[in-house]
């Protein structure tokens, strides 16, 4: 039996042995998807490097490890979350803490949340608003080749649900803080659903942190529905330690004239894989997929982006930039698919990476797949080093080498940060990135737990 089959067997067994435990902690609607999803997973397995979209990322060491816990965390784990504080200066946000993928169940009432918005546990929502959840759950997370998605559907018991009613606009963001904390190695899976109704506006921040030095593997699927004329903005800040792997799959389904921004800022993490899918399903929709990755040591970051232009007159933009230090490796796979109906499409894509050492490595694979003729599409990718002329310019003005290097790297990264719409957050990310580039950031400044081991 080869490795792949073994892994499949192992997860099938886990599923059968624990299905009652998973299901008891979840809702009927969500449970009804599990059987088929497991079947699909058995067919696909964990994606290996033969899978074109995982060509540069090796998941084997993470999935062949033995985790002590795969499912619901214990009561005591929730308590630990209370210690955590993540403050963004001057940022008024509605915070929700998820510990090991499980949100607290308190009926969707966050402090000070305005009318028309519901933020809380998906399981709770499935019980309270079954029709609403049924209308969207499992509809957008479609990728026939990635076994991690059905694995999540089969095994994840809960996650967050955000619902914003038609016409309601939120100025301050909803902040989801994803914590992993345990005294045992853990495999965490959670499943999120976000519904932005027509003409609504929802900004969101997701922060990923690991609080204890154990080995963590997170496989998270997020489905987002963005209605007509609606506006959705999601910013993910990833800051986990080197023994943590984070696999995220975000599916953003956009209706007519909607606008959605996804931004993945990776500061730290053993292995990070962000798959972002924008489906432009209605005419006139626009999307912006952004990413910034700053990695060192043995870290690996892989950004996969798929923009599916299914309707005419849509616009999409991709901008991914990164700096790789030490032995870090990076991968980028951006895909623009323009369907035959999607005339008058404008789609752009850019990926720039700076390698700081000879041991750092970048693999980039920008792709265009175009079936309509009246389009303007372009992509550009570069891999290189800091500009010598710019370096000389700074040095000749008396700036020392390290400082000049830092300035150039920061300037390079700034292009992505600039696109963040919330001012307070922009300042905060600026600060984080600067610290990261200085090598000072190993954890968030306000965090009381030292997780950099």
């Amino acid at each position: 039996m080869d490795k792949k089959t073994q892994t499949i067997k192992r997860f099938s067994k886990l599923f059968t042995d624990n299905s009652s435990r998973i299901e008891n902690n979840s809702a009927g609607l969500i449970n009804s998807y599990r059987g088929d999803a497991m079947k699909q997973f058995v067919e696909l397995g964990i994606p290996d490097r033969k899978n074109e979209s995982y060509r540069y990322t090796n998941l084997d060491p993470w999935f062949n490890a033995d985790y002590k816990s795969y499912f619901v965390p214990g009561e005591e784990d929730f308590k630990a979350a209370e210690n955590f504080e993540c403050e963004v200066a001057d940022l008024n946000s509605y915070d929700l803490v998820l510990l090991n993928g499980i949100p607290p169940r308190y009926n969707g009432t966050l402090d000070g949340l305005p009318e028309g918005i519901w933020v809380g546990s998906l399981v709770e929502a499935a019980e309270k608003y079954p029709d609403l959840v049924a209308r969207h759950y499992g509809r957008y997370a479609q990728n026939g080749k990635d076994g991690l998605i059905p694995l999540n559907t089969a095994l994840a018991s809960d996650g967050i649900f955000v619902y914003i009613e038609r016409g309601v606009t939120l100025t301050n963001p909803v902040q989801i803080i994803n914590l992993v904390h345990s005294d045992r190695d853990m495999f965490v899976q959670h499943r999120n659903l976000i519904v932005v109704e027509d003409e609504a506006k929802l900004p969101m921040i997701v922060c990923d942190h690991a609080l204890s030095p154990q080995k963590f593997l997170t496989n998270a699927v997020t489905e987002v529905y963005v209605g007509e004329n609606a506006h959705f903005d999601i910013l993910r800040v990833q800051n986990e330690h080197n023994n943590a792997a984070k696999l995220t799959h975000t599916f953003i389904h956009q209706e007519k004239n909607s606008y959605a921004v996804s931004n993945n800022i990776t500061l730290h993490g053993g292995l990070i894989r962000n798959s972002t899918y924008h489906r432009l399903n209605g005419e006139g929709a626009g999307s912006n997929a952004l990413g910034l990755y700053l990695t060192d040591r043995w870290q690996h970051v892989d950004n996969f982006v798929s923009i599916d232009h299914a309707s005419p007159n849509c616009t999409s933009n991709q901008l991914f930039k990164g700096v790789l230090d030490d032995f870090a490796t990076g991968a980028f796979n951006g895909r623009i698919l323009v369907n035959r109906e999607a005339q008058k499409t404008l789609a752009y894509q850019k990926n720039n990476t700076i390698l700081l050492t000879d041991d750092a490595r970048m693999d980039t694979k920008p792709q265009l797949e175009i079936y309509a003729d009246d389009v303007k599409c372009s992509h550009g990718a570069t891999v290189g080093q800091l500009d010598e002329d710019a370096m000389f310019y700074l040095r000749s003005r008396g700036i020392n080498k390290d400082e000049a290097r830092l300035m150039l790297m920061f300037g390079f990264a700034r292009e992505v940060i600039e696109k963040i719409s919330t001012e307070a957050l922009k300042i905060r990310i600026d600060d984080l990135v600067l610290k990261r580039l200085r090598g000072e950031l190993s954890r968030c400044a306000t965090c009381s737990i030292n997780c950099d081991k």
Partner: protein
Amino acid sequence: MEKEQDKILNEVTSGDYKYGFYTDIDMETIPKGLNEDVVRLISAKKQEPEWMLEFRLKAYKAWQGKKMPQWAHLKIPEINYQDIIYYAAPKQKAGLSSLDEIDPELLETFNKLGIPLEEQKRLTGVAVDAVMDSISVKTTFKETLAELGIIFCSFSEAVREHPDLVKKYMGTVVPYTDNYFAALNSAVFSDGSFCYIPKGVRCPMELSTYFRINAANTGQFERTLIVAEDDSYLSYLEGCTAPMRDENQLHAAIVEIVAERNAEVKYSTVQNWYPGDKNGKGGIYNFVTKRGICKGENSKISWTQVETGSAITWKYPSCILKGHNSSGEFYSVAVTNNHQQADTGTKMIHMGKNTRSIIVSKGISAGKSQNSYRGLVKVLKNASNARNFSQCDSLLLGDKCGAHTFPYVEVDNQTGIVEHEATTSKIGEDQIFYCNQRGISTEDAIGLIVNGYAKEVLNKLPMEFAVEAQKLLQISLEGSVG
């Protein structure tokens, strides 16, 4: 307007493929099918030495262990490898020494194709190795070239007369284990061209191979090996055509180039295999492995291709930049129309220090065709100061065709600078308007724009070819107004 455009489009696309005729000559073929005995039979027919047969058999074993590659953006119908004739040769007497002994029908065929086999036509100044079906028919200017020490002959002749050279270089650039089609070719290849340029020699004329598929139900498997010693220079041309037939025919070739220190090899192709009719029936499956190695310092290999033919093209002329300061170039225009499919591009593997490569790829899709660029730029760990620039543009003429780009960039050295750019668009209405305004018809305007678009690549072709390519481009596209 729309209707008129459609009309023109129809006229052009239903226009005859100029080279679609069939010559009725005496052929020697072997039965259909592929097995070890067939491999032995081919080898025996060619009176090959034992080492050659061994090479073929090893390749055949390797092929059996391989699966047809599925990764390309192509829909390839199942190919029945047992339904193909692996050896077909025009019957001729052994040991031709003068043109008079060639079957006049055969000569006529090549004359019709505009390939000068008569050495009297010195004006053209191109030495030709003509390959029909499986067999090299005639190599011109052999004697003139021999005076300079240049060896230019058919592959079988090279196996017989220069076994040391063939042994030394064959399979070093494209090993028989390389891929499915390379293994197939290595097992059953029937002929091809061999070219050796000795040290310090600048080849005075362009060398050329002309491939012609004639017989039905056959596959063509030829092999080209080019060796350029230190400080030498060679410009090599390749052309190909086939008769119009309803069934598909397989062409799986290998081209290997070795460039030693300071050597420069320019390899230009105008690929015009029969592309099938406008309903996508028939046409050649063109699955070719082309690769060159810049072995020595300062060596240079340049690939230029104009791809207009074939029902399906699967072709990635590549450069391995092993020598320090070596450079590789790839210039391509790929045109697809009707139901044609092309998945083509290049690989630039930077191994040596200060190596440079440039990729310019222009795709043009019309009709219901699918045109993909697929390329790899790889900078290995020790390849410091490597530099690459790639530009891949696609032009769409029509709303039923597709243009795709799949570049791979893998950089493992911080001093490397790799840039990739790609754009996809249709011809700007403003551009056409500008031409219309100056009295140029839409039809001509498109020809003008497409030619301008492809100019960067066409300019790299040798003169004789550039003219042909330009015409070909016009024929393939005129009227494909989207």
